[in-house]
């Protein structure tokens, strides 16, 4: 009877909408900033002078800022806004701790500001979407833990028994992001601005794309699906089409997504079985993704007439449609033969922006517009601008992705084209392929301009809706719900038909009956800890199935005896390569295809030599690469076989001005920015012993003697290179400059394996 009394007592509480307001403002503000940076880098590709010869503004440094800003500042702030608003209402409780909510908000904004400062300064780990250095990663971990504790404790104090499926998606996101962030960012710090990942080469690439792909899954997909399952019914004013389908969507999606990462590494030095596994699971992803899309769209059953007059629904419908399109295209691109054409081209950029601009961007904007009048208790300042935003945004997306599809397929076909008369590459000069797609780069820039304009309209509308509100203090609606009461497993009795019918059976029969009824799932579902454990098992088991074999199977990375660690100067040069973000435009992975081995051949080898056609990259060539530098895009040519292809002085002149001078043309029409500061900035020799120490710690076979003499060794090698370029008529004293270290690294690239071939050992 005590239970009855308690259950009838109502508690009063108010939702914390102030935290949602904060995240909504942050979403739109950082969205505009991130998209603006994206637009700048898009224009840099058609107007290379826009790099302004300022090191902080080069494409290689700004591109990571763009990706980090739109993913972690725009999309994540939108996710947090959606989570705080919907979770409180779905759980019928205020957030557990207002203070933790605010630490989360300000901590996250601090991280964004740090990223905006460190990335243009060239402080980077060079792993895509995980560029931030180790101490920022620790800060991210701390903020994420506080957010998670607050979220799980809010679930614990809820007044709603069942956890709505949106909450499941949020839980999966919290858990998976934590796992991905922790395992991909395991590094040995060397200084505040430098660290080396504990993985190397193939294993580093595998971990990176396990992370990179699942960042798309658990940052840009699952939390947005949670938001879709909450805000779409809200906006349509009707329940989701099929709750059953939403549960199927959830479990199949989180179980499948985690396996698909290796499709980013087809035809690379990654083991074939891992690549195939990634492809198969990517194709299976069609099933839950389209189930989710259909579920979202059919929520509008009987209410399609509302879409015509409600721009919020327009945003959401187009967002879900783009979700369907991008999740159709992703599996398509994961098929090996399609990937062979599309990988490293702008097709991938088109695919990514199909998802981010269409799905993430439009769902976020739709949510913001739906929240605006409710959060600020005011009508939207310019409702007609919402409609305008929708249309120019949609046209912008279409212009962007169509340009990139055409550019990408054109480039992919040109890379592999052979002249039928000569049997040689039809377009041997890489820059010819770039010139052919420059008009589509303009199309992309125009599409981006339209999309950014829409975001700016949203920003003005948001600010003015807030500024013109009539009440400075918001009305807080007081909610009432029955008091929380702890429920223990023992008190939740399983309904038994056997017992109801008075059947005389052994106790084991009741246990079997309970098991068969799966009533335990309803109990688990109500206990967030258990649901969380199930999510961890789903995500973790899939990860381990791929990670353990990749690391443990000996034959995955056969050692090549002639592959040696970099010299200290080359290591310093490699760090400069990383810092300048060269991987954003140049891959270091020659795929085993004739078009690639012809273009990226061994430059110093007789074409008739027996091994001349075997210039594709081997797993054993990367075992000392912490981090790997395979890249994911070829705006410029692959560099893995660059060593020995050109002279030291050519590299010097090329870095100073890639197009050359009137007297000496280097790469006419190159869109690469110049790097004049490399000829002035000194190489930090003093840190070399520490770097070699870190490498030794990671298992790279440097001796203690090499660690101690690394500075002298590096200076001696630098003097040799500087003397060579001086003899070629380049004035100045460059021994201690960064350009020399970078040249040392470039000249080493992909050359070790030649000794193995020349000794006929392979």
């Amino acid at each position, binding site marked *: 009877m005590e*239970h009855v009394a*308690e*259950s009838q007592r109502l508690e009063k509480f108010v939702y914390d909408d102030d935290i949602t307001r904060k995240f909504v403002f942050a979403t739109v503000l950082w969205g505009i900033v991130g998209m603006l940076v994206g637009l700048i880098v898009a224009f840099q590709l058609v107007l290379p002078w826009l790099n302004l010869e300022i090191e902080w503004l080069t494409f290689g440094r700004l591109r990571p800022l763009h990706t980090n800003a739109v993913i972690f500042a725009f999309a994540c702030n939108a996710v947090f806004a959606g989570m705080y608003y919907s979770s409180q*209402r*779905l759980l*019928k409780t205020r957030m557990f701790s207002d203070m933790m909510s605010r630490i989360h908000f300000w901590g996250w904004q601090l991280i964004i500001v740090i990223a905006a400062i460190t990335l243009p300064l060239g402080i980077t780990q060079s792993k895509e979407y995980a560029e931030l250095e180790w101490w920022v990663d620790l800060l991210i971990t701390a903020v994420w833990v506080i957010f998670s504790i607050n979220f799980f404790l809010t679930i614990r104090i*809820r*007044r*709603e*028994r*069942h956890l*709505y499926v*949106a909450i499941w998606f949020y839980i999966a996101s919290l858990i998976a992001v934590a796992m991905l962030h922790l395992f991909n960012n395991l590094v040995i710090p060397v200084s505040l601005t430098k660290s080396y990942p504990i993985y190397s080469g193939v294993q580093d690439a595998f971990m990176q794309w396990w992370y990179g792909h699942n960042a798309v899954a658990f940052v840009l997909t699952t939390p947005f699906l949670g938001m879709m399952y*909450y*805000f779409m*019914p*809200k906006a349509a*004013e009707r*329940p*989701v089409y099929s*709750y*059953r389908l939403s*549960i*199927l969507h959830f*479990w*199949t999606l989180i*179980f499948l997504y985690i*396996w698909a990462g290796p499709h980013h590494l087809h035809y690379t030095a990654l083991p074939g*079985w891992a690549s*195939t*596994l990634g492809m*198969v*699971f990517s194709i299976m992803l069609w099933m839950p993704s389209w189930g989710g899309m259909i579920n979202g769209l059919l929520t509008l059953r009987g209410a399609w007439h509302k879409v015509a007059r409600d721009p919020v629904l327009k945003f959401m419908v187009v967002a879900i449609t783009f979700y369907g399109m991008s999740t159709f295209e992703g599996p398509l691109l994961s098929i090996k033969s399609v990937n062979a054409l599309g990988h490293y081209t702008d097709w991938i950029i088109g695919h990514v922006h199909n998802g981010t601009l269409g799905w993430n961007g439009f769902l976020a904007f739709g949510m913001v517009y739906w929240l605006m009048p409710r959060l600020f208790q005011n009508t939207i300042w310019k409702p007609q601008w919402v409609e305008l935003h929708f249309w120019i945004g949609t046209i912008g997306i279409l212009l962007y992705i169509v340009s990139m599809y055409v550019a990408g397929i054109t480039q992919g076909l040109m890379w592999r084209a052979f002249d039928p008369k000569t049997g040689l590459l039809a377009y041997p000069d890489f820059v010819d392929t770039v010139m052919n797609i420059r008009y589509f780069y303009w199309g992309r820039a125009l599409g981006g301009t339209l999309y950014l304009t829409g975001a700016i309209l949203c920003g003005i509308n948001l600010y003015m809706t807030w500024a013109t509100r009539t009440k400075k203090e918001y009305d807080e609606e007081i909610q*009432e*719900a*029955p*008091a*929380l*009461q702890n*429920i223990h497993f023992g*008190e*939740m*009795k399983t*309904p038994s038909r056997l017992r109801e019918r008075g059947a005389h059976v052994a106790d084991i029969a009741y246990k079997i009956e309970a098991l068969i*009824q*799966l*009533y335990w*799932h*309803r109990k688990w579902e109500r206990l967030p800890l258990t649901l969380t454990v199930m999510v961890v098992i*789903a995500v973790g*088991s*899939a990860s381990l*199935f*791929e990670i*353990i*074999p990749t690391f*443990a*199977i*000996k*034959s995955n990375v056969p050692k090549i005896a002639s592959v040696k660690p970099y010299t200290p100067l080359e290591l310093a040069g490699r760090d400069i390569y990383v810092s300048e973000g060269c991987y954003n435009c140049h891959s270091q992975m020659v795929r085993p295809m004739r078009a690639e081995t012809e273009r990226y051949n061994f430059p110093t080898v007789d074409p008739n030599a027996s091994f001349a056609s075997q210039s594709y990259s081997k797993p054993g060539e990367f075992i000392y690469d912490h981090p790997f530098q395979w890249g994911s895009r070829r705006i410029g040519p692959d560099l893995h076989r660059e060593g020995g292809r050109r002279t030291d002085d050519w590299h010097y002149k090329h870095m100073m001005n890639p197009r050359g001078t009137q007297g000496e043309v280097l790469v006419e029409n190159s869109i690469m920015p110049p790097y004049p500061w490399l000829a002035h900035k000194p190489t930090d020799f003093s840190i070399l012993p520490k770097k070699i120490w870190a490498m030794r710690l990671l298992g790279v076979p440097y001796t203690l003697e090499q660690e101690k003499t690394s500075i002298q060794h590096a200076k001696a090698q630098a003097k040799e290179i500087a003397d060579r370029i001086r003899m070629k008529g380049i004035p100045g004293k460059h021994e201690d400059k960064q350009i020399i270290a970078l040249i040392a690294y470039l000249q080493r690239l992909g050359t070790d394996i030649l000794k193995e071939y020349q000794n006929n050992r392979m």
Partner: protein
Amino acid sequence: MRISEIVSNASRSTLWVEMALVLFFTVFVGVIFYLWFLIKPEALERAAQMPLDDLHPQEPLTLPKDPHADHAHKGER
């Protein structure tokens, strides 16, 4: 025998890929079976209404007055 040797031996066939597919298929069939045969439509309909009502819990987190009567009423499983 070290774990790397065990895993290396196991990798001589396409075992990993096959095990992964079997594992997924089992989970998928399990979820389908649960959703279509073991859970009652009323519980799903009630859950689907949750975003539409910010004020009232669909299923309050309190012990029912009579657990058996409540289960019978709601048809929970």
